[in-house]
């Protein structure tokens, strides 16, 4: 079979050198975008440097000196070493992780199940679709207030439980340290499963129908098709959806703050709530800058990981 000798791929092996004309136009392109690049650099770079600078001092707005004079209270890396011993910080970080470890998988599994259901047609699909997406469109602060009321000890949530069990249930959801955390998680799952659902559904709909038919013709049953064709095909999208939710949960604030204010005590205090309290109540901004920088670095690593996955998928995986 001499067919293999006329492969279209053969031409792609040509050495990649940049011709002079191309190099010239690149230089021009660089010059033309330079002003914008400088602006972006200023917007992104300047606050970052300022933050880094302040994080190395004990500066507070109460000091009565401008932030540029923060060197007067220079403390080297004391903020960072303090952070290592700050039990409230570790507690907040731990609770954030707990919320993430419960909410992200729960949202993912719920969303994947729903998205799989929505692959087939059923009566009322469009209505259910709209209803399902609604929580996502509620302003988080409003959602927070909704759940604040739902979880009152005489509120509707207990009312439903009472009706179901036949007993008079009066659980003080938001004033019990454990249950408050559970309530916060329920609110997050309610509000953000739809986003995950939407992303995963987009992925599943994009799985080529011919591939599913081919798999069926080769003897694969529904379960086998799901695990060998559909899931691998939406791997990239799953990673993106998970990364988005992980990053979002690191920043979880508004709904939670309105529901519990981080309480009772520090029972639902996440890192965002902690930073907010240190910023507005303790006013030690040098320390806040240090915390924020640590979180920024952690999230950047996550984001880079997610982007690497996307890049890899673009170059290899799918045709």
């Amino acid at each position, binding site marked *: 079979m*001499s067919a293999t000798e006329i492969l279209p791929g053969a031409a792609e092996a040509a050495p990649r050198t940049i011709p002079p004309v191309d190099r010239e136009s690149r230089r021009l392109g660089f010059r033309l975008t330079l002003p914008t690049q400088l602006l972006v650099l200023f917007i992104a770079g300047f606050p970052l440097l300022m933050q880094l600078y302040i994080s190395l001092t004990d500066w507070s707005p109460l000091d009565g000196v401008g932030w540029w004079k923060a060197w007067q209270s220079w403390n080297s890396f004391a903020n960072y070493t303090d952070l290592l011993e700050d039990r409230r910080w570790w507690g907040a970080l731990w609770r954030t992780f707990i919320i993430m470890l419960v909410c992200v998988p729960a949202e993912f599994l719920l969303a994947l199940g729903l998205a799989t259901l929505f692959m087939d047609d059923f009566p009322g699909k469009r209505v259910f679709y709209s209803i399902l997406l609604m929580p996502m469109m509620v302003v988080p602060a409003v959602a927070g207030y909704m759940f604040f009321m739902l979880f009152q000890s005489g509120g509707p949530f207990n009312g439903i439980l009472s009706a179901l069990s036949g007993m008079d249930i009066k659980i003080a959801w938001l004033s019990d340290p454990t249950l408050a955390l559970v309530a916060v998680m329920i609110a997050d799952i309610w509000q953000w499963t739809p986003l995950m659902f939407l992303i995963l559904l987009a992925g599943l709909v994009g799985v080529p129908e011919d591939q599913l*038919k*081919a798999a*069926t013709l080769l003897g*694969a049953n529904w379960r086998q098709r799901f695990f*060998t064709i559909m899931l691998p*095909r939406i791997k990239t999208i799953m990673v993106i959806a998970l990364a988005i939710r992980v990053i979002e949960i690191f920043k979880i604030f508004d709904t939670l703050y309105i529901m519990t204010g981080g309480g009772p005590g520090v029972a639902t205090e996440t890192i965002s709530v902690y930073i907010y309290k240190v910023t507005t109540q303790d006013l030690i901004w040098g320390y806040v800058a240090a915390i924020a920088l640590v979180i920024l670095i952690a999230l950047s690593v996550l984001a880079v990981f997610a982007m690497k996955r996307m890049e890899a998928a673009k170059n290899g995986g799918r045709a």
Partner: protein
Amino acid sequence: MTTIRLENLVKRFGDFTALKTMDLEIRDGEFMALLGPSGCGKSTTMNMIAGMEDPSGGRILFDGRDMNGVPMGKRGVGFVFQNYAIFTHMTVRQNLAYGPKMRGMSRSEIDRRVKNIADFLQLTPMLDQKSAKLSVNILQRLAIGRSAIVEPAIFLLDEPLSNVDAAFRAVMRTELKHLQKQFKQTMVYVTHDQLEAMTMADRIAVMDHGVLQQVGTPLEVYNNPANIFVARFIGAPGMNLIAGELAETDRGLAVDLGSWGVSPPLPDDLAAAASAAGSRAVQYGFRPEEATLGLEGQGLRSRVTFVERIGARTIVHVESGQTVKIVAENDVGCSIGDDVSIVPAPAAVRLFDAASTAAIRGG
């Protein structure tokens, strides 16, 4: 190794009838091409054979066994999709092993089959490559191999060459025909390209508007089209057809072609069939390749309107009310505006009933 019988097969989508009562027998080991323009029902027929769609009426029999209600995974049908539907997230090996694995074959059996099929299709060197970036002819072989590995009795191919550029198509055609010879499976090949059907198929089923027009070997279909549609569809360019009326001349029965003049007398058997058929309005047909072009003299009178020089041959368009194409020598010396006369080879003349469009056959 299976005979496929379609009995009174019907497919309706709502109000639209995609296939009107189709009867067809595809013999064991045969390469059958379903040929027709898009929307003729050929893909619908194929999808029903594969079990992807349920017939609205009629039966599909594999070796006499009614396939109604048998799910597509259990029909023993290999399907090569238009875009090959290769699992691009898997390696070549994983693609080949997919069918056996889903059927729960043992590890060693899977390995043995993959090795055999990869050797046979010369896929061994790329077994562990990702299949996403393979060239199109390797994809075709992989698609065939992936279906063949579970030893289906029937192979269905849905326009596998339509995404391939023209230059490469000839190579792929040869390769495909070669593979079919070796596999010896019954193959059904859907295409709208008559060249593919002519070059590869043992028999061609020509379809149009959900109706089977003619079944026959490529030469039968080419030489003796059953009706006007087949006459026009097969051949490049298709058969010339001129409307006319049967007329008695002193040299025998001929066709009065209006402004073209009167045709040469019809061969005896065709004349007998034509007078037996009764109707006088006919379409007079002949292949562009089977007529000679002369300057003035005996033959159908006409004028050259266009000269297409395509290298090996020249296609001369002539017009006298209707346009007729003649395939002539590459150095034919005529130009636009020349008066010419056309003499169709007597044996190549075909007549069609103008009303029913069916062929009038002699002998």
